C-alpha cells in the first residue's frame, strides 16, 4: 500500500528508482463532443486545434486537446481558464452544436517517468506501449480500469484515472515500481 490517500494531495509518490510516480496538480478538464463539420468553429473558439485522428494531440500554451474518439476530445487547460473556455464554446453553440462537459474533478492524474516508465505500464496495460508515439496518447485499459494515457516523452507519461479507481491503479504502479527497484 502506498502512502497515498483519497485526499489525493499532489506531490511525489515514488521519488527515486527506475520509475518515479508523481501526483499532478488538478487542471481544468472537459469532455468535448461534436460532429466533424463543426470542428473548425469550436477549435477556433477554444483556441486549440482538434486533431481528427484518434490518439493525436494538439496544444496551444497550456491548453491541450487529445482526440479520443471520432467525435470526442479531451480538453485540458489551466483551472483559471475554465470560465473562459465555457463561455467561448457557449458563444459558438448556436452555429456549431456540440457538448462540452466539465469533468475536471472526475479524474486524478499521475505522472510516470524514469528509465523504465514504459515498461512499468506493462504490469497492467495490454496495449503495446511502443505503439503510442511521443506527443500522442490514447484511452486504454489498465487492470480493467479505463484510463487516458499521454505520452509526453519516451519515458514520461501522464495517466488520467477516474477518482475512485485511482488509488487501486496507483497502488499497482507503486507495487510495480518496487518490483523494478528490486530487480
Amino acid at each position, binding site marked *: *500500500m502506498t502512502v497515498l*490517500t*483519497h*485526499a*489525493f494531495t499532489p506531490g511525489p509518490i515514488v521519488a527515486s528508482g527506475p520509475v518515479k510516480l508523481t501526483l499532478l496538480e*488538478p487542471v481544468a478538464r472537459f*469532455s468535448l*463532443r*461534436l*460532429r466533424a463539420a463543426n470542428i473548425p468553429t469550436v477549435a477556433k473558439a477554444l483556441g486549440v486545434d482538434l486533431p481528427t485522428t484518434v490518439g493525436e494531440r494538439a496544444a496551444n500554451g497550456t491548453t491541450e486537446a487529445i482526440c479520443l474518439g471520432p*467525435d470526442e476530445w479531451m480538453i485540458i487547460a489551466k483551472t483559471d481558464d475554465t470560465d473562459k473556455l465555457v463561455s467561448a464554446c457557449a458563444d459558438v453553440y448556436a452555429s456549431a*452544436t*456540440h*457538448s*462540452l*462537459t*466539465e*469533468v*475536471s*474533478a*472526475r*479524474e486524478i492524474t499521475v505522472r510516470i517517468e524514469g528509465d523504465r516508465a514504459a515498461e512499468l505500464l*506493462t*504490469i*497492467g*496495460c*495490454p*496495449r*503495446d*506501449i*511502443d505503439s503510442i508515439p511521443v506527443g500522442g496518447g490514447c484511452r486504454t485499459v489498465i*487492470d*480493467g*480500469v479505463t484510463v487516458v494515457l499521454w505520452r509526453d516523452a519516451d519515458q514520461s507519461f501522464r495517466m488520467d484515472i*477516474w*477518482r*475512485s*479507481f485511482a*488509488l*487501486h491503479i496507483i*497502488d*499497482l504502479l507503486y*507495487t*510495480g515500481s*518496487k*518490483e523494478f*527497484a*528490486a*530487480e
Partner: protein
Amino acid sequence: MSSFRVSGRGRVDHTQPIQFTFDGKKIKGFKGDTVASALLANGIHLMGRSFKYHRPRGAVTAGSEEPNALVGTRRGPGRFEPNTRATVQEIWDGLQVNSQNRYPSLSFDIGAINDKAYMLFSAGFYYKTFMWPKSFWDKVYEPFIRAAAGLGVSPTEPDPDHYASRYLHTDVLIIGAGPAGLAAALSAARAGSRVTLVDENPEAGGSLLSEPSAQIEDMPAWDWVGKTVAELKELGVKLMTRTTAIGYYHQNMVGLCEKLTDHLASPDGETPRERMWRVRAKQVVLAQGALEKPLVFDGNDRPGVMLAGSAQTYLNRYGVRVGDKAVILTSHDSAWYAAFDLADAGTTIAAIVDTRAEPNADLVAEATKRGIRIMAGHTVTGTEGRLRVKSVRVNPVTGSSVGAPEVIGCDCLLMSGGWTPSLHLFSHTKGTLAWDEERQTFLPDHKAEECEIAGAGRGLWGIEAVLNDGAAMGAAAVKSLGKDIAPASYTVANDRPGTGVSHKELPTDLDAGKARAFVDYQNDVTAKDLRLAVREGMRSIEHVKRYTTNGMATDQGKMSNINGLNIASDALGVPQPKVGLTTFRPPYTPTTFGAFCGYHKGSHFEVTRKTPIDSWAEENGAAYEPVSLWRRAWYFPKDGEDMHAAVDRECRATRASVGIFDASTLGKIEVVGPDAVEFMNRMYTNPWTKLAPGRARYGLLLGDDGFIRDDGVIGRLADDRFHVTTTTGGAARVLNMMEDYLQTEWPDLDVWLTSTTEQWATIALNGPNARKVLEPFVEGQDMSDEAFPHMSVSECRVGGFPARLFRISFTGEVGFEVNVPAHAGRALWEMLYEAGKKYDICPYGTETMHVLRAEKGYIIVGQDTDGTVTPHDAGLSWAIGKMKPDFVGKRGLARPDLVAEGRKQLIGLLTEDGKTKLEEGAQIVLDPNQPKPMKMVGHVTSSYHSDAAGRPIAMALLEDGFNRMGETIYIPMPDRVIKAQVTGTVFYDPEGARLKL
C-alpha cells in the same frame, strides 16, 4: 561424496555444496542439482508412490515431464506445495522435501495393499461396484475411494508469497532454448527483430546440455551455447530462463510463467515468487524439442527403471551416474549413446538389449569396442527387486515368438522407446497433426496461427539437422515480418542422429493377462487396462482415456499418450492416425494458482471504489456495506449501538430535524445537445418535452422487453442539457445501454452522453431543518419554497463551490441533494455538518436511507424489482408517457403476459401482531395449511422496523396484489406462520405534507 557422483562432471558447481532434507534425512548435493539429481547422487531411486496401487517409484525422467518423482516441498510456514516434480525443483540450503502418498513411510506403505488386489481394481472397476447397499456409497465406499486417491496433501495456510504479471509485445517469441531455439533466435535477432527466447530450464541449451561431446562449428557444444547466449544478449534478445510457455492462445498470445524465487535459499522478499507473462508475438517459433518414450513391459515401473536419455542427462548435466550396473533396453539408437557415456564414466553396462534384430552397425562397433554385450532382437519381459530393480528378465524375440528368458542382474534399467515431438503448444492453437509413418509419430501439419516449428519438435533428430532447421525457421519467422536474412548453416562433429522403431507393449512369454506393464505411471494404467477398455466398447481414444485415466495424470500424457495410442490402436485394429490423439490443453506443465492470480490478491483482488466523503465516514466510525464495486457507509453506530439501534436513531433524527447522507455513488450522466429532449423521450418511459429547465422529474428506464432496468431523478438544466442520475449499481450499464441505442439505432440524433458520476460529490440533506442548514451556504439561488419548490434543480454556488443543487426527496422530508466537484465534497460535507450541529444533524448511511424511503413506498430497483417487474407491477404506471409514440420498452410492455391479469404487484404488508418484522425474501401463501409444494403467491422484497410508523413495515410482490388490499395473507416460516395484511406501500405521511414544510 557418494560413489554415484562423478567428480568434475556436469554443470553443477562442485565447489558449492548444499544440504536439504528428504523425509527428514539430510541429503547433500551441489548448487545446480535438482532434488532428483541429488537423491540419485546419493544412490536413492525410491522417490514416490503411485496413485492407485501405491507402487514404489523412482524418477523416470530428468525433466518437467516426470510422472513419478513427485514430492512435497516446504520453505517455512505457509510455503508448502505438494506434487512438486523432484526432477525440476532446484535444491537450496534448508529446502525440506517429503515423499507423498505413503503411510507410514515411503519404504513401507500400507496403501500398497491395493497393489495386491490389482486384479480387482482394473480400469473402470468403480463404475461396476460400490452400489450395494445404496446407503454405503456416501458413508463407506466414497470416503474410502477418496482417501486412497489424491497424491500430496493440500497446503493448509495462506500463501505469504506474492506474484506478479506483465504484458509483453515482441516480434518473435521462441519457445525452447535448445539448439533449434538458439539457432532460430540468432537468425531472428541478427535480422533486427525484437526477439524473446524462453526456456523452462535454469539455463539455455536444452538437449545440448546433455551432449557435451558434440562439436558445433569446431567448438565444444557447451562453449557454443555460451557464445551464442552472449551474442543473443548483445543483440538485445530477451532471454528468459525458468520460464515455461504454459498456453498458446488466440492470435499469438502466449502465456508464460516465470519462476523467480523457488530456486533461491533466501529470496529478498520484494521479488515475486512467480510472474505470469502475457506475450503477444507477431511470430512464434516452437522449438520445444522431443520427449523420450518409455517402453511398456512387465515391471517397467520399478525404481531404477529410467529413460536412457534422462540417465544421460543426469550424467552429463549433473555429474551423476544413476547406477553401477545398467541394462539398456531400447528400440532406438539414442539409448546407445547414453550407454556409451555411462560406460565411459564407469558404470558397467551389463547389456544393451535392442528390440531390433539388426541395430546400426556403427553403434554395434562402438559398443563392442567398449566390451558391451549386445542383445539384438531381444526384449525385456520383467524386472525384479522390491524397492529398486535388481535384475531384469531378457528374452530373444523371433517374429512373434518369445524365447526363453535370461535373468541379468543390474541396479538400473535404462530404456528408450524412441522420441515424440512436443506439440502441446502447437495443438493448443488447434493446429492439426499428421501421422508420420516412418517416425511412427505425429508431426505438425496445418498451422492455425502465425508460427513455425523447428528442430526435434518436427521430428528432426541430430544436432546438425536441428541447428540448421532452427536457423531456417528463425529466418522464416522474420521473413513474414518483412525482414530477410540468409539462415546460418552449421556443421556438427560427434553428432548423434538416430533412428528407431516404435512399439505397443513389448512381447512377453508370460501370461499377458497378468503382466503389469505400465503406460501411465502415475495413474497406474497398464496396457491390459487399455485393452480392457477397448474390449468394453470404448472405441474412441477419448473414451479410452476417460475410462482408464490414461494421460490424465500430472504429466498430462507426456509419458503415456503415444504408447497408449499404439496399444489402443492395436486393440481396435485401427491405424494410429485414424484413432487420433486426445486433446492437448493448457497449461503445458502444472502452474501455480498464485501465478494466475498475479496482483489480484487480498484488497487488490478487485478495486474498492470510495467516495470523496468516505474518509470522513471512516473517521466517524461508519460500518460499511459493499454495493457493486463501491463501499458505502451503511450506518454510523454510536457507543456500542447495534445496527438496529443506530438505524432507528438515524431515522428519528432525520425526520425530527435533519440528516446528512453521502449519495456520491449515484450514477450521473450528462445528456447534451439539441436533440437531448428527444433522446430522453425515447429512452425513458416518462415524457420530458414539457419539463422546464430548472425542474426535475423521476425517470424510469425499461429494457425493450418491458421490464424495469433502472430509475433516478433527472434534472433539466437547460433546453438541451439534462443531468441524469442512475442507481449506484446501474451507472455503467445504463450509460452503455444509452450509447448503444444512440450509436446504433438513432445515430441521427444530435446529442452526446458524458459520464459525470465521479465529477460530482453528492450530499443529501433531509428533514424539516434541511433548508435551514443549507440556506446560508447557497449563493445564486433563492431557497424559498416558491422560488425553489420540490423537484427543482439549479446551478448555483454552495459553500463557495460551483454546485448543482436539487430539491428532491427520497425520504418524504424536505430534501436537497447538493452536487459539488468531487474534490470539494468532503470540505462541503464538513461545513454542512458543523453548521448542522445546532440542529442535531445526523449522518446516516444506506440502511437508514432504505428505511426512510420504504416508509414512503419508494422502490429500490433490484430489491423491490428483479428484472421481471413492469412499471405497472411496481405501481409506477403514472411514470409512463402514454402519449409518446415509442420509448424503450413500450412494445415489450404490450406482450400478452405483461398485460395479463393477476401479475405480481408491489404492495405493502403489515404484520397482524404489529411487532413481527418479516424476513426479506419470505414467501407468501393464501392458504397456510396446504401441503407442500405450496402455491406461493409472492414474496417480501423490503422489510424494516419503522420508527416513524412505530411498527415493522414491509413491501412485497403479490399476485394480483392491487386487488387484495385489506386481505390477510400468510407467511409460513420454519417454526410458525405469520399473518399480515395487504396495504398500500406508503406507510408515512401519505398526503406528502412534510415535503412542503
